[in-house]
C-alpha cells in the first residue's frame, strides 16, 4: 500500500512531502511501547501508535520505517512534525482507534 492509499483509508491528516506519498510500504507494526516496536518492527513499514513524543520518530528512524500513523485523534506538536520531516518520515494523524486503523490497513492489503 502506498502512503497515499493509507491516508485515504484512515481519513488522515498528512504531513509529508508529495514524493513520499507514492512510497510502497511492505508492512505495519502497532504498539504504544517503543521497545516492542524495536524488537519486531521492520524497515519500509508503517508504525501505528497512540504514543506521542519525539521517541516515536527516533524509533521509526532507527528501524528505517518511513511512515508513522498517530491514532485516537492525537495531534503531533510542531517539534515532532519537524523531527519527522527532517528524517523523511511521513506523519499521519487519524481519529480512528488503533484497532480500526489496523483493520483498515489489513483490509487494504497490508498483511504483516
Amino acid at each position, binding site marked *: 500500500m502506498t502512503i497515499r492509499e493509507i491516508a485515504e483509508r484512515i481519513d488522515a491528516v498528512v504531513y509529508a512531502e508529495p514524493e513520499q506519498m507514492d512510497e510502497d510500504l511492505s508492512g505495519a507494526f502497532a504498539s504504544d511501547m517503543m*521497545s*516492542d516496536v*524495536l524488537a519486531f518492527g521492520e*524497515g519500509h513499514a508503517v508504525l501505528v501508535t497512540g*504514543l506521542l513524543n519525539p*521517541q*516515536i520518530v527516533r*524509533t521509526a*528512524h*532507527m528501524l528505517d520505517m518511513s511512515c508513522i500513523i498517530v491514532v485516537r485523534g492525537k495531534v503531533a506538536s510542531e517539534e515532532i512534525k519537524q523531527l519527522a520531516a527532517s528524517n523523511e518520515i511521513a506523519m499521519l494523524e487519524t481519529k480512528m482507534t488503533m484497532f480500526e486503523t489496523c483493520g483498515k490497513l489489513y483490509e487494504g492489503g497490508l498483511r504483516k
Partner: protein
Amino acid sequence: MTEDSNALHFHYDVDGNNFTSAGEASVQVKRMLRQMGYHPDLIRRISVAMYEGEINMVIHAKGGDADVYVTPDCITVILKDVGPGIKDVNLAMQEGYSTAPDNIRSLGFGAGMGLPNMKRYSDELIIDSVVGVGTTITMKFKSA
C-alpha cells in the same frame, strides 16, 4: 577495554537529564555509518541496539559515555555509565523484566525489552556491571 589503535573512534556524551534528546548519539552514528556505506541491515541492527542502550542510560543512570570503534571487520559500541548497576544480569536479560519506573512506561519504554533487544541485534554482548559503581555494555557487530 583496549581497542585496535587503527580503529576509527567516535565519542558521544549521553545527556541523562533530557528524555526528549535521548537517542541523538544513535542518530549520529546511523548517519555516519550510512556515509561510510555499510549495508542498511547492519546499520539498522547497530542503531537499534545502541538506541536501546542510550535509552537505558537515560532511564537508569543519568546518562554516560558512548564510544564507537570502527575497524574493517567489526563495529564496537561501548556504553559506559556510573549509574546504580544491574543487580541480577540474568533477570535483566529476560524479555519483559523491567525495573524502570512507571513514568518511563508512559513514555513508551520500560517494557523489559532493552537488553534482550541489544542481544538480539548484536553479534556479541558483554555486560560488565557492579552495583553502586556502574555499568559498561560492549556490543560487537561483525561487518565482514
